[in-house]
């Protein structure tokens, strides 16, 4: 089991009618990994998950679980369990009966089922509600029953389709932590579907970012955020400034671009870009640096003169929009590291300043 991935998708395509909902997706998901599928609505996350669960079959391509092809295996014979977005608890059964259902289907003896059910309910801290019906539970409790109902079968892989989507913000945060620690304890592979990037970043070991049925990038949260390989990923995860231009020089992993309005900027280039090709420089607002004219020291980086246009104070940060010229503004975020009421400690609209765009913090991406 060691080397074979828990889940492997090879060039999987799923078509509903003409357009593919999932388009040539290849993935390898390791044993015990917390793997997220992240992407905007309609990008094919649920369809991918349903193919792993067996509710849909690929139009072409292969799907393997622990090296075993799933082409002819119906859902009830697959070693995976699903936590549905709507929970799909059986309304005519008590919490206990819901959780016992999977074990009963495996035809385990009664005396074995009872302790495993109560164990699973303890795991999600719902032992005291075992006799309730699902409609007598809150959303968060129902969610935990759905989790217990799936986990009690000790699946090789647990599939979760936006399991926290229906919860309010606070409960959602709590459940994120709970889910993560639960996964740690049970050591089962989790495949987690979400369209919330923050959720994906907090919880995952690795993330696959999807758009229009395609997987654009797979990587750890840091890789996805710090080294997006394309414009869509950079844009979808977090905030960023895009500066379009033309490559004028590439050397040693860096490229320089020149913009139509005459800016020349340097950044890391994941791929070597030929001079003359169109490219976009992406830099996150918190990675730009803004100083007053007086503070400007001897820097290796060219400073860009800017004027402060908008300042919004949001407590932990100050978010500043600076104007470089007639056509162009950029967003800069500064952390408020010093506690003060002094107005002069904060930027004011209209102030002149110098903006630094460190090449190590910027990425030059091909279109």
């Amino acid at each position: 089991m060691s080397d074979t991935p828990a889940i492997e998708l090879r060039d999987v395509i799923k078509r509903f009618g003409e357009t593919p909902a999932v388009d040539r997706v290849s993935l390898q998901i390791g044993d015990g990994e917390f793997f997220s599928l992240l992407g905007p609505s309609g990008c094919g996350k649920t369809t991918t998950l349903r193919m792993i669960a067996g509710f849909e079959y690929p139009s072409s391509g292969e799907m393997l679980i622990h090296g075993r092809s799933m082409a002819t295996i119906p859902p009830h014979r697959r070693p995976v369990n699903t936590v549905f977005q709507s929970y799909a608890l059986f309304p005519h059964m008590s919490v206990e009966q819901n959780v016992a259902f999977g074990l009963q289907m495996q035809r385990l003896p009664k005396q074995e089922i009872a302790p495993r059910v109560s164990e699973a309910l303890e795991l999600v801290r719902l032992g005291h509600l075992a006799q309730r019906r699902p409609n007598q539970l809150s959303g968060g409790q129902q969610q935990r029953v759905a989790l217990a109902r799936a986990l009690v079968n000790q699946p090789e892989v647990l599939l979760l389709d936006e399991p926290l989507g229906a919860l309010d913000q606070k409960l959602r945060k709590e459940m994120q932590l709970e889910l993560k620690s639960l996964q740690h304890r049970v050591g089962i592979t989790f495949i987690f579907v979400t369209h919330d990037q923050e959720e994906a970043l907090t919880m995952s070991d690795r993330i696959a970012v999807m758009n229009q049925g395609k997987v654009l990038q797979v990587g750890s949260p840091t890789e996805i955020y710090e080294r997006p390989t394309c414009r869509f990923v950079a844009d979808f995860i977090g905030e960023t400034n895009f500066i379009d231009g033309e490559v004028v020089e590439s050397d040693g992993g860096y490229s320089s671009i020149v913009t139509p309005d005459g800016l020349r900027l340097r950044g890391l280039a994941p791929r070597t870009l030929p001079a003359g090709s169109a490219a976009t420089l992406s830099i996150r607002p918190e990675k730009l640096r803004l100083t007053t004219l007086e503070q400007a020291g001897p820097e290796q980086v060219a400073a860009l003169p800017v004027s402060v246009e908008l300042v919004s104070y949001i407590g932990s940060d100050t978010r500043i929009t600076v104007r470089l010229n007639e056509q162009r503004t950029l967003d800069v975020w500064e952390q408020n590291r010093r506690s003060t009421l002094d107005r002069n400690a904060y930027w004011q609209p209209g102030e002149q300043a110098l903006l630094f765009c460190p090449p190590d913090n910027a990425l030059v991406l091909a279109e």
Partner: protein
Amino acid sequence: MRLYWPSEQGSAASSSCKRTKEECRLAFDLIERTRVQRDRRNLMALLLPGLLWLLLFFALPLLIILLYSFIVSGPRGNLIWQATVGNYTDLFTRAIYLNAYLRSIWISLLTTLICLLLGYPLALFIVRQPPHVRTLLLFLVLIPFWTNFLVRIYAWQIILANNGLINSSLRALGFAPIQLLNTEGATLIGLVYGDLPFMVLPLYAAIDRFDFTLMEAAADLGASRRQAFLRVMVPLTMPGIVAGSVLVFIPTLGQFVVSELLGGAKVDYLGNLIQRLFLRSNPPNWPLGSAMAIVMMLLLLAFILWYFRISREEDR
């Protein structure tokens, strides 16, 4: 609760506060009570016409029948006002009556079962269609109601007769004709045909409310399609199954038209016997007919109660 009344330290302010609260509650109670009273009056006014109707045309005739069943029938079919339980002992001791009961119960159960077995897949199929197709199919299920039931049964006579549609086709194809009309099989066909919509409609309503994600959830947890159907779908559509069964079973138990026109009145069902005792036999025997009807109603009542009980247990 306590949060709203933080001044429990017993200050003057707090006690006056409590008093006002008490008064408020009394006032609310009063308003609430008058509202409930008014609602109840309105309700009575609305129910009255219906209640009167039921009293006149249901309870009263029922009482008369009950009364008749305990008196003696005269030699010319006249009523002799003399108390007796003879009618009931006749029912339970003479084979002709006992057999009619058993035969009626049997064919009603068979009809209900066949309607259920045909109706469930049909209702399920209709629910799974896109909305416009669904409306059309439901419409088709209801179309037979546009024609009088008798006329439709005569149509079945034409289909099943010895020189009818089926048998002339058989003959044209070189097969020997088969006796279809005037058999118990023809009765069963007619009953199933007539009752099927009463099974399909409640089943449709129940299955339409069913969340099919639950079938995926069951499959996900290792249930085969059959197990998922029996453990999840059947219990959750039980209200439709119960309603449909009751709607089919009740009228079938007392029917006499179908067995007369398609079954050729060869064997006696309850409905035929009752009808005969009241209208056709010479002399008529109203008291015995009344006793038969009363026992049939009690049977139905027992059946319905039992059915509701087991279906509710299923649900649990």
